[in-house]
C-alpha cells in the first residue's frame, strides 16, 4: 500500500507557473500555499500580486486576489485588510517592486503595524524586464544596466531592507531566509508560517525576505545559481530572525 507523503497543496490552483526553469518563485509559492493549508484559512485569504515576474501570482493561488500598481501592494493590502478585518491579506513582492519603487509603501505599512503579511523575494536583479540593476544588486555584479559591474561610486550600495525595517515598532515578525537547499526550504516555511501567525493572532506586520535565484538573468544554470547565491549573496545579506513577537507556533 502506498501512503501519500507530499503532493501539490490545495491552495495552489494547479495552473502551470510561467517562471523560467529553476526559478525559486515556484518553491516560495508552494510554501505559502502549504502554510495557508496548514492554518486552514484558504477561503479567508487574499493575495495581492505585484508587478514583476510574479505578476500572475493571483492565478497560481487558489484564492481571491488582485494586482497592485508597481510597488503599491502594501497600500492596497492595507485597504483590503481595513475594509474586511475578518480576512487575511498577504502581498507577494519582488525586490524591484518592494525595494525600489515601493520603498515608501512598505516602510509606512510596517511602521503603522498593519496586520498584513509580506513575502519579499530578493533575487538581486530585475527579472521580468530583462536583468537590469535593482537596488539589491551586489557590488561588482554585472547586469544589463551595469555592464562593468555595479560600482558604489556610481550606483550606490546594495539595499538591506530587513536592516532598514527592523527599527519599525509595528513589525511582529521579520526574518531573512533562503531556499537553495531542502533544509533551508523547511526553515523558510517555518518563517512564512510565523509571518502569517503574526496576522492571524492580530499582533502586527509580518515580513519574510527570501533570497532567491534568477538563473536566466544571472546567465548561469539553476544548480550553479544555487551555489552562486550561497557564495555571493549570503555574505552581503546575512540570514536571521530580526524581530519575533509571535512566540511559538501554538
Amino acid at each position, binding site marked *: *500500500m*502506498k*501512503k*501519500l*507523503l*507530499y*503532493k*501539490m497543496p490545495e491552495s*495552489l490552483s494547479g495552473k*502551470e*507557473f510561467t*517562471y*523560467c*526553469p*529553476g*526559478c*525559486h*518563485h*515556484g*518553491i516560495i*509559492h*508552494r510554501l505559502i500555499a502549504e502554510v495557508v493549508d496548514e492554518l486552514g484559512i484558504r477561503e479567508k485569504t487574499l493575495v495581492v500580486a505585484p508587478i514583476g515576474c510574479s505578476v500572475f501570482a493571483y492565478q497560481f493561488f487558489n484564492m481571491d486576489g488582485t494586482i497592485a500598481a508597481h510597488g503599491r501592494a502594501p497600500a492596497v493590502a492595507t485597504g483590503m485588510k481595513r475594509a474586511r478585518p475578518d480576512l487575511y491579506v498577504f502581498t507577494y513582492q519582488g525586490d524591484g517592486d518592494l525595494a525600489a519603487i515601493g520603498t515608501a509603501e512598505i516602510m509606512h505599512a510596517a511602521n503603522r503595524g498593519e496586520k498584513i503579511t509580506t513575502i519579499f523575494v530578493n533575487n538581486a536583479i530585475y527579472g521580468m524586464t530583462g536583468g537590469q540593476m535593482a537596488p539589491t544588486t551586489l557590488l561588482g555584479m554585472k547586469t544589463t544596466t551595469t555592464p562593468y559591474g555595479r560600482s558604489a561610486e556610481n550606483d550606490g550600495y546594495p539595499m538591506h531592507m530587513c536592516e532598514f525595517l527592523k527599527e519599525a515598532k509595528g513589525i511582529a515578525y521579520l526574518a531573512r531566509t533562503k531556499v537553495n*537547499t*531542502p533544509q533551508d*526550504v*523547511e526553515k523558510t516555511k517555518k518563517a512564512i508560517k510565523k509571518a502569517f501567525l503574526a496576522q492571524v493572532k492580530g499582533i502586527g506586520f509580518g515580513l519574510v525576505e527570501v533570497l532567491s535565484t534568477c*538563473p536566466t538573468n544571472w546567465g548561469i*544554470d*539553476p*544548480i550553479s545559481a*544555487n551555489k552562486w547565491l550561497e557564495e555571493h549573496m549570503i555574505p552581503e545579506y546575512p540570514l536571521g530572525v530580526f524581530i519575533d513577537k509571535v512566540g511559538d507556533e501554538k
Partner: protein
Amino acid sequence: MPKVKGYIEIDQERCKGCGLCINACPTKVIELSEGFNSKGYHPAEAKHLERCIACGFCYRMCPDVCITVYREE
C-alpha cells in the same frame, strides 16, 4: 539497503527540466529523460525507483510542484 521504500511520480508535462530535484536527491533516483515533453524540455524521470527512500527532497526543491511522493507500507 534502506528500510524505508519510497515511490515518486513526476508530472513530465509540467516539468521544465531545471535539474534541481536531481541535485537534491541523496540516492540519485532521478535523471533527465532523453525524450522531450510538449514544451520542448527534457523532463526529469524517476529511473532508479528501487533506491527511493521517500525523503521528499525532490518535492521540496521542485520549483514547478511536479513531484508527488509516496511511502510504501
